């Protein structure tokens, strides 16, 4: 049985590593400016963690294979170096990994969170509510009208609770159900929640950020490739959580201007 | 457990060694401290919101505080009597029970004082959900009062053990005494928080 354990565990370890090594399940293409740092970090971690995983499992498999079902009266003996060796190994192996990943890893984090948005980034506001995302562009005046929760009226498509009658700045705001952005232009996404916690996740952009009711949060990013990408809600928000999504359309500047013109006429 | 009946001229038998499971009460206090630390952090985070205001601590709180501190003295007196630190005389049983009873009465008076403080706030239109400050006021004083009532229940149990069985486990006495003093210390801390932060 001991030998069987060794064999089965070896198979399990190698079978587990197989899909990783052959890249069967990987993240989608990266279309962001900061994503490569995250992908690199992920790949480095996968290499170290993957190696540790396989080695540890093989070691366990080998030891059980070799040291079980021993002869009657077999003597037990200790690994030379004992616990001290293990402690030192742990500190060196893990310590260096931790330092490397921790120290170098913060660059990727800093790129997303510690750099302020470009002053001429395109500002868009995203509102998350049970169970849809809506987006608002500030219009030619470059200003967002104030939000009035008591004026929200989904039946009349006033998703944000705008008051154009009394709010000059709200009059030219453009509200859409789709987030269209020009390629290679920095976007400053302002995030507002209408009701409960939600989250904004675009796999290809390598961004994820919660909407927190009552907090003004924002993200900034630049998309480097045109295309149609899913925006998913990743914070449990109620029964429609699984279906709460929108689309990110990354367009050429020309196409984006056309799109914006069309949306303005639809308001 | 020892249940020796004896004449009033002798101290009640305190069973159990001076040590024993005395760590129990300190462990419990650790947990209670942690809970109030959690409430305090909630207060600190909540006070960052724009609707944080200010409420005046009702004057009766200071009277209640005095009552609770005196009850601590009574509790300490009870402990000394029961552990025989004070010379015993005739009618000591009555005296011992008297000190414990006084502690209980003062404890109840304290809780009554808290109730008066709540009435005072209600008279000002400040209820539990009126504003975050009033919420914390009722919360902190209410949870503390609940713990004081628990202490009073323990004191009553102690009283019954003394009066009926005329015997007391040493670590039970110690436990109740430490708990009672802790209630006073905790109240002093909460009073500071209320006056300075709310």
């Amino acid at each position, binding site marked *: 049985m001991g030998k069987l354990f060794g064999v089965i565990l070896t198979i399990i370890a190698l079978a587990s590593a197989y899909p*990783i090594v052959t890249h069967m399940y990987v993240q989608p293409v990266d279309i962001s400016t900061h994503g490569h740092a995250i992908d690199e970090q992920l790949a480095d971690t996968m290499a170290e963690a993957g190696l540790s995983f396989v080695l540890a499992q093989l070691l366990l498999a080998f030891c059980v294979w070799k040291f079980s079902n021993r002869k009657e009266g077999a003597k037990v003996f200790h690994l030379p170096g004992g616990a001290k060796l293990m402690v030192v190994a742990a500190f060196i192996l893990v310590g260096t990994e931790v330092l490397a990943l*921790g120290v170098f890893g913060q660059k990727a984090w800093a790129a997303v969170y510690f750099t302020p948005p470009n002053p001429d980034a395109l500002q868009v506001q995203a509102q998350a509510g*049970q169970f849809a995302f809506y987006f608002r562009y500030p219009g030619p005046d470059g200003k967002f009208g104030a939000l009035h929760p008591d004026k929200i009226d989904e039946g009349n498509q006033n998703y944000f609770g705008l008051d154009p009658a009394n709010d000059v700045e709200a009059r030219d705001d453009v509200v859409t159900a789709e987030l269209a952005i020009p390629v290679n232009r920095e976007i400053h996404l302002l995030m507002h929640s209408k009701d409960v*916690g939600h989250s904004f996740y675009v*796999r290809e952009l390598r961004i994820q950020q919660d909407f927190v009711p009552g907090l003004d949060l924002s993200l900034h990013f630049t998309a480097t490739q045109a295309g149609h990408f899913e925006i998913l809600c990743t914070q449990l928000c109620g029964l429609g959580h*699984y279906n709460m999504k929108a689309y990110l359309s990354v367009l050429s500047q020309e196409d984006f201007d056309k799109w914006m013109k069309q949306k303005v006429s639809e308001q | 457990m020892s249940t020796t009946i004896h004449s009033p001229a002798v101290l009640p038998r305190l069973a159990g060694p001076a040590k024993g499971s005395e760590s129990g009460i300190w462990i419990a206090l650790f947990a209670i401290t942690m809970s109030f630390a959690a409430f305090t952090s909630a207060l600190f985070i909540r006070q960052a919101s724009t609707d944080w205001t200010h409420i005046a601590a009702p004057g009766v709180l200071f009277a209640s505080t005095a009552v609770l501190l005196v009850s601590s003295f009574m509790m300490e007196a009870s402990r000394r009597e029961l552990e025989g630190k004070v010379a015993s005389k005739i009618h000591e049983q009555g005296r011992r029970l008297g000190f414990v009873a006084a502690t209980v009465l003062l404890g109840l008076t304290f809780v009554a004082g808290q109730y008066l403080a709540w009435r005072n706030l209600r008279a000002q239109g400040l209820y*539990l959900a009126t504003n975050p400050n009033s919420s914390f006021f009722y919360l902190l004083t209410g949870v503390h009062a609940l713990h004081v009532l628990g202490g009073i229940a323990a004191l009553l149990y102690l009283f019954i053990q003394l009066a009926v069985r005329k015997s007391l486990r040493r670590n039970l006495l110690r436990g109740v005494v430490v708990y009672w003093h802790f209630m006073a210390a905790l109240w002093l801390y909460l009073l500071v928080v209320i006056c300075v932060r709310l």
Partner: protein
Amino acid sequence: MEEALKSQAHVHAPAEGFLWKYVFSLDHKVIAKQYYALALLSVFVGMGLSWLMRFHLVWPNAKIPGLELIAKTGAPGGIITPEYYLSLLTMHGTLMVFFVLTNAPFAGFGNYFLPIQIGAEDMAFPRFNMMSFWTTFVAFVVLIAAFFIPDGPPISGWTAYAPLSAIGKDAGPGLGWGQNLWVIAIGIFCIGQLLGSLNFIATTLDLRAKGMTLMRMPISTWAWFITSSIGLLAFAVLLPACVLLLLDRMAGTSFFIPSGLVVSDRLQNHAGGSPLLWQHLFWFFGHPEVYIAILPAVGIVSHVLTNSLRKPLLSAKVIIYSMMSIGFLSWMVWGHHMFVSGMNPFSSLLFSFPTLTITIPATIITLIWLGSLYGANIQINSASFFALGFISMFVSGGVSGFFLAQPSIDIYLHATYFVVGHFHMVMGVAAIFAIFSGTYFWFPKMTGRMMNETLGMLHFWITFVGTYCIFMPFHYLGLVGNVRRYSSFVDDFMPALMPLHKFITIAALTTGAAQFIFLFNLVHSRFRGKLASANPWRGTSLEWSVPSPPPWNNFGGAHPVVYHDPYQYGLKGSTGDFVMQTSPEQILNE
């Protein structure tokens, strides 16, 4: 060394009468079995819920026969609605984390064996002990009641984030009285745990037998001691959090709910509260809680392994210090559950460092186990196999944690199946393996009979291979970006992943079915198992020095004296290749 013998003054007399012997027993051994039984019930209910979930994910339109009787609104016609899926998810997590993983390895085995392993007749506070179980039982009943109210159980997950959990029924089905029952149940559970932890700590500090120094306590005892220290403080924070949540829900306060929320077309009458406050309070409890789930497992496995290897581990002291460091560090890492929550991004980096650092003591412990295997004389049986399997699972689960500890990687992996794979590996598999190992190991002591080894081995193999088949693929799904807590998969990239999901579901149903082998073995062996001797595993610790099962006062009124640590294996003793802790035999080079 202080003689704590006279502390026995408080010990109760042997119970008489059915109620006092079996229901409101003050005997820690009976209470332990009550906890274990409650955990067993919870795990089968929790497993059933996961079957329903896995079924629904791959066969969403399947009619599940009989379900419409229990869930009239949740599963009309036997088809699970999106909200019912979330209810199943919430109750699955709640039952498993609280009623299984906190109950069995800690309250269950700990209650039974802590007093015996330190040479005590019972816990320090037997009445508190009895109350702690019944409080936990009441919490269970209140929680399960949520299944039977019209609106059903809550849909906010075991994490119950505000404001979804705080607003009330406007926020969705199950969030009215379902959520209230959940909060009340968890609050009551906290009180039970506080009473239990108090007992464990006081007992370990005050009731050790003569010669039982702290360092002579078995690793399992140390694990229970450290766990209860963590539990005392962690549950002392969850209880206030539940109080605040209940006040928001029922008294109109605004601890967690800000102003201006429009839910179900209704403007909510709250202002100024902070949803992040709930997350901080919850995870300040929640992270130590997962160490409460794993440390007793580490202790049990170390204890079983020492015995199964017939040699001491490379260093029990280092394992103990490592467990203490894990306990200490566990208080500093809670923010790693909140990297993208909207909290200050600088805090995320601050939380990341201690999170990565915890890997060090965890690695030390794993390397000591692996290193100890070298040169051992491994005894193969169900108990040792589950202990060895634990090492494999602990490595697997730990390694995926390494990814999630880094905020930048977490940006991509947060809220995906990668996270679900990670915590199921460590909690849902590894910790459960330790419970199995402990069961096979200690069943003879608790009942006086051996469990059936053939069935045990069958149980092991199916479970070992099966759990890898279920949970390893979760990591692959996460790497693609498969989002968690979805009742159906409607995203464009999901169809390609459905074959893997089907594989997982079939593995889950199969592995789950194998657990009935264990249940059968448990019940059958209780009545028909081979009779066990006092020391069937040739163990050294105190539980093996008393009969199987032990008498009501554990040591028959005797006061055990301890001469050695519990690691005297692999030498020439008078009884074999070991020397018991209570044996006055001299050992050279101790």
